[in-house]
């Protein structure tokens, strides 16, 4: 098996499992899948799920049924930055549709697609609990709130700069 946690990730894995009583290590499945997704390029190939199953000593099907149930797990490759824009009621009445249309135009992709350079994926999601700070989107582990067209431009530029700086 080629996919494996490195030492640091393995330490994190062990600390996650230690939160639950002995013999109840399956309880760590959700947090461990987050760790796997973060560790293996932002999505969960079957190989990653099988690896998690072997670590937790459970059947692979027990991992698949969980990974397919929860919306935060990506079962397909995604861009470096995933724009998860909320489209539920409170965001809609605060103008999320215009923001979604604007992001589509600026990135030239439709919801569910990734830009050709592999930088951005656009995903439409349901309520993220930021209704008072709408419109909003989640990018990685943070929320970008009170979105305007100008803010969207600045955010896209910010992430492009980040990549340039890393290279």
């Amino acid at each position, binding site marked *: 098996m080629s996919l494996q946690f490195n030492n640091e990730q393995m330490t994190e894995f062990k600390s996650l499992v230690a939160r639950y009583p002995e013999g109840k290590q399956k309880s760590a499945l*959700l947090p461990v899948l987050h760790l796997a997704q973060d560790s293996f390029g932002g999505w969960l190939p079957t190989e990653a799920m099988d690896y998690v199953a072997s670590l937790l000593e459970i059947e692979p099907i027990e991992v698949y049924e969980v990974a397919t149930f929860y919306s935060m797990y990506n079962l397909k490759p995604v861009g470096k930055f995933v724009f998860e824009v909320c489209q539920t009621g409170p965001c809609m009445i605060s103008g999320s549709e215009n923001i979604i249309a604007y992001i589509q135009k600026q990135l030239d992709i439709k919801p569910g697609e990734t830009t050709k350079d592999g930088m951005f994926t656009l995903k439409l999601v349901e309520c993220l*609990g930021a209704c*008072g700070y709408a419109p909003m989107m989640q990018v990685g582990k943070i929320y970008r709130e009170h979105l305007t067209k100008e803010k969207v431009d600045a955010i896209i530029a910010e992430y492009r700069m980040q990549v340039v700086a890393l290279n």
Partner: protein
Amino acid sequence: MGVKLLLEKANVPGIRTYDVYRREGGYAAAEKALKEMSIEAIVEEVKKSGLRGRGGAGFPAGMKWSFIAKPEGVPRHLVCNADESEPGTFKDRYLMEFLPHLLIEGLLISSYALGSNDTYIYIRGEYAWVATILEDAIVEATKNGWLGKNILGTGFDCMVHVHRGAGAYICGEETALIESLEGKRGNPRIKPPFPAIQGLWMRPTVVNNVETLAAVVPIIKMGGEEYAKIGVGRSTGTKLISACGNINKPGVYEIDMTISVEDFIYSDEYCGGIAGGKKLKACIPGGSSVPILPANLLLKTAKGETRYMNYESLSDGGFATGSMMGSGGFIILDEDQCIVKNTLTLARFYRHESCGQCSPCREGTGWMEKILQKIELGKGESSDIDLLWDIQRKIEGNTICPLGDAAAWPVAAAIRHFRDEFEWHINNRELSQTSNFGLQHYADPIHVPA
């Protein structure tokens, strides 16, 4: 200014850290509970306080605690429900983000009262940074002797663990949450057995909302009777309201439940009025699943009396002319909002979040979304309204968990109060694509028979 019991210190610089929280009087209630009070006395204070579950159902917290089974040799667990996912609701996030130690202190007292040595915070996966804030607070609390072994020399051990979900509204339902905490899909369990008897890992478990557990701190500090004096009737204490939509000042507010809905919307201390000077059209006062009310029924009850921000007054008139306090997710719609479209986004939400276990919900939510989409796109037929009504009725009450009801109610209430807006969409297919039904009569004074 109203009474503030939870957010009083939210603006103190550095209150997120242990040192500042402690300096501001934090952990005094925990000290009092663990050192001076018996377990029975703590439960008694919570009962006397009249505290009702702040997650949405409003079930008396003290009574819920008293149901927990105590079989010999079986560990018990307290689980904090921080899965906050009801559209319009973002109060728990605020509380955890700014006052993490208030929650930890509430968890400690409650864990002690329930005998939970391993307590879990199930937080929605998207609140990743909030989970980090909580984990940092747990480390601080442990370092300072408030968590861990033999707390304050009482012999009581307690550890709090953060468990991140992964994006599923259904996990806010307590048995789905427990399944998810066991590493499974969030499919609600059939009750009975109730979690108090067989919950997490089939052990006796109490699941309480974040705000409920935080409220235990002021209750212990001031005593249940004093707490119960705040508010009115069975709406005791304070409630966090997350206000959003078309208002000037969206945000999280702590209210004592004596304020009128009108004052809450228009006073500068709270929502600050409707944004852009527009008129109020409708409101969903307690999170997306509670019935939407037109402006006239929101501000006054059907009897013409002032409506207040509390459990009893918001539900005055039942579903025919009232709504619910729910989770405190207060969504305001101005005169330019389209009720059909708003209902469609909520129907889509519930279709997306249905776990798929029960046919009425799995199939019904999909049908409701499709029909609403059809009406919204100017392809509706007059029979569609009755069809929608029929579907929602067949979902309500026919599912294992309350998500079915939660999906049915918004559709039912939208048709009940805004039927003419739906009819207008169907009868004006082209016009409805370019313009809006508007305010119409929805803010008109209601006719009150003498």
